[in-house]
């Protein structure tokens, strides 16, 4: 049984079309070249573990934005993007043109902090799996290893912080910031 924070939808509603039309497509950062942040901007880092390719992943908040199918391939990968700093919520995951999930509640909230790389978690999508069809999983160590390997330059000048549910001190630990 799905919790109340996940709702399936199976019809392409007019509202859904309109919402999609309002969302700005996110261009993910793929190379280690410099991507300077503007004022009041931060990086959002999300992991994706999906057992099928997705059509879109939409976030509401400071800005209504959307990752699109070219970034949402089947398997495991990471999504790094620049966004205006502020609160966001993963609002909708579309599997294909006709079906997807609407996500409700603050369990899907992520904060993008100015000047930082905000890791929101790994979005795990498995609609036919034994657990929930969508979850946000804390795989901080994997995110850190990804950034170190593929975007070391960004990591040098911006702190990686945990921005998902609850408090996690792992990134601070590895930076040596925890008090003795």
């Amino acid at each position: 049984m799905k919790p109340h924070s996940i709702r399936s939808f199976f019809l392409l509603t007019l509202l859904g079309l309109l919402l999609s039309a309002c969302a700005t497509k996110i261009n993910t950062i793929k190379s280690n070249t410099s991507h300077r942040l503007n004022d009041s901007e931060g990086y959002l880092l999300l992991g994706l573990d999906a057992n099928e390719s997705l059509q879109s992943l939409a976030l509401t908040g400071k800005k209504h934005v959307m990752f699109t199918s070219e970034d949402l391939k089947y398997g495991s990968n990471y999504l790094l993007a620049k966004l205006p700093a502020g609160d966001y919520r993963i609002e909708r995951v579309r599997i294909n043109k006709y079906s997807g999930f609407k996500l409700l509640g603050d369990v899907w909230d992520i904060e993008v902090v100015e000047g930082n790389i905000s890791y929101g978690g790994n979005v795990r999508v498995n609609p036919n799996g034994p657990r929930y069809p969508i979850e946000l999983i804390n795989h901080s160590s994997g995110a850190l290893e990804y950034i170190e390997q593929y975007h070391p330059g960004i990591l040098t000048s911006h702190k990686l912080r945990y921005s998902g549910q609850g408090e996690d001190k792992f990134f601070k630990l590895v930076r040596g910031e925890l008090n003795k």
Partner: protein
Amino acid sequence: MNIIKIVILLLITVESSYGEAIPASKLFQAEKTEDVKLSPDAKYFVIKRREVNRTVLTLTSTETLDEYEIIHFPTNKNNQLKGVVWLDKQSLLVRYSYSYGFGSSDSYSILKIKVNEGVPTATPKHIKARGYVVDPLANTENKVLFALLTDADNANKYSLVYMNHDQLSSGSSKHAIRFSKNTPKAAVFISNNRGKDIMAVKLEGANAEIYYKRSQFDGWKRTGHLPLNDNYFLPVGFIDDEYLAVLSNKDSDTVVLREFSLVDSRLGKILASHPSYDIVSAETDSDSQSVKWVRYFERNKLVTRYFDSKDQKAKRMITKALPGKQFVFLSQLENSQFEILYSFSSSSPGKYYLFDRKNLTAGLIGEARPELKGYKFSSSEVIRVAVSDGIDVEATITYPSVPPNGVLLVNPHGGPIGVRDYDQFQPELQYYASRGYTVLQVNYRGSTGYGRKFLDAGRGELGKVIEQDINKVVDHLFKSAKFKHVCAMGSSYGAYSSVMLAIFRPQRYSCVAASFGIYDLPLLFNYRNLDKASGMIKATENVVGKMRPELWDLSPLYKLEELQAPLLIVAGVKDPVASIEHSNRLRYRARQLGKTEQSLFYKSAGHGHYSWFGDRHEAVSTSQFFERILGLSTTWKTKEILVEESTTLADGFSDGTFLPEDPSKAIKHYRKAANLGDARSQFVLAQNLERGVKADTLLKQAVGLYIQSSETGYHKASYRLGELYADRFGLNNLLLSYKYYKIAWEQGNDFAALETAKMQCLSRGAQRNFQSCLKIIDSEIKAYKSKTKRRPKYDRQIRQTLASILWQAQLSSEENRELQTVLGRLVKIDSFDVSLDERVSGAFENSQPEYWNGQTLEHSTTLKLRRGLIFGVAFNFLSNSEQAVKQDQIVYNYRWIKPGSADRSGKDIEEYIGISHHKGFHKLTYTISDNSELRPGDWTLELQTLDGKPLYSKTFTLE
């Protein structure tokens, strides 16, 4: 006074006096004998036995002890025989599971047993009815009491009905008889007293309501609501019309057996208890309104306290005959002469006996682990140690069965709440004890079986009281024993505890092996965003306590700077309990701090291994880790142990199934084993040399290793030499090819038998001997048909051999007829006098011989060469016999000749026996399936009759 004697037949196994390291492959495998169950009339008992490639159910007569196989299941990771129960004296219910993708499901069948001249056979019938058997009503034939699933989305999802076996098989409940009027739908039904007394437990939110019914003529009665709070409450059986016997710890520290009033839902007097231990199970008899027995664990051993004097006497006798062993009766039938007795201990894998109550004899009928006969095992000693004022803990010490190596392994159990160690055979314990280690296991505060106070004393005490208890026991041990080194080794919570022990006492612990563990306690609260909604957080709080700042200080991850001991981290990538994130963080941090660390992240493991190979690999890796870190002597290792360790480690790295593929590590270990004379390792190393994988591509070296392996008896190596020498890879020595095929055949390789026969028929590398060739093939066909050789694709191999002979050999008419007779034993031949019409040729969308939707992708004989290209010809076949009918099977020969085969023989030809039907449609196609087949040029399809008359030829040019 009568002196009652017991004659125990074969009860005492003669144990070997030597101790030696027990190979991991012997220890870490499934039990060979399980599910020994007596039939309701005690005339037979069924046993589930595991063999090399299959699981077998056998039936044995209690009178003659003749054992018969009644059904078998192939050993298959996707399908497993799980269990068996008697439905009545002629029927068994078999449960098996099958896996699919990410899940698995249980399925059931009824086995009907027929006995003909003393020999039983069984016919299976699959059950489609969904639910479970509440009571088999074993004394009533063809009728069971069944909880039928009627509403899967409801907590109270079952209805109680009587069903016969046909109804169970068909799944049709239309004529199933309702158990009685007003039977409630329930979450679970429990039967007592052979189906006469029934309890139904209904769930209403957080409460449970018990309905009960005694005998078929009373109505249903119900108790009041029972709150499902922290008290333990388990109904056992009826005592009389007013009282149930239940196990509960409400109003007591330990779980006791007491009365429960069905009238006012109150707990009554205590029927049985132990001052220090929880009662874990019990049985009552409502006919005599008494308790038959209760069970508890005392000093880790299972104790059954009987209340009937006859049972007490039997227990005394068995205890005397089996000193130091624990035992249980598995089948307890009313007034039966026979019982199944199961005995076990920490130093004895289980044994099954047929106990004769009348003659007071017991005969051995099965051993759980017969392959371990001859090995000396270590017994465990239990001690009690005061850890705090008024609090003792029990601990088990297992001393080595070989000269000690001076290492104490402290092995905390998992949990930590509600789990414990027992005095029973543990493969892991025996693995280390047989290698010189002393192993300590502590039932620290939080362990189950010692009462509620003791259990609750561990809640929220991770990294505190629990590790204090363990260290107190180690302190105690040190007063009487000396160890050169102490290491901590544990799994799940035991992994956490092991790392924390070493952090707390860096002077004491020299190394740590931590498997499938949690290392970041706050991560338990923020791993999944939906855990709060699912109730997981509450369950975590029940063990760890609420999320609080202290948890960071109690997490090994955040205290790793203080760890001095080298660390082995083992994890399962698919672990749903202790997620891989814990181990990945620990590994990251250990490397960051420059700690001596080794990690093994098993790709196909969860919270533990799903295959025995994983357990073996982990045991070998861990013991080698200890040896390396502590500088332990390894001169005691026999060649068998050395080979096993090397091949196990090599296999783990060889193909990426268990661990990330690492060819150089794999080859390193295979080379060690190959140098010790292991034939399989020599073969694998030779294969790698041939392929040039991380090694020089030196065919000569590869051949040298194949020869070594062949000489040691490895048939695959001999077969490969046969192939290599048969002009396929440039060695071109048919005499040697024939020699090695013959050797491979003698070593048990069936494919080599066919190659030997073919070479005799074709006089290649051997003198022509048609009769010998035919005899071999005929024998292989007989073996295949009689199911002694049912290897997949073997019939295809036989047919290809015959096809090659028909195409290539110069056969006389008589020889051709004889060959056809032999072929006729494998394939029905109604006609070989064939004619055909070509329908269409070119490229097709699929290779299915009898499917064609009328579309040909390309209608041409000149095609573009590409991977995945399927090309060929579609025919209509006709038998030339006047009496031919549509079902007649017509047989012919065909072959594909690839580019470069000027003489139309050798490796570039593929020959087949073709089968079609009279007036049948058939496509003969070739698929370019991999890069090695991307050969431009002429590809020719030829057909001939079995007696050599050409039928058809067409050439495709692929560019």
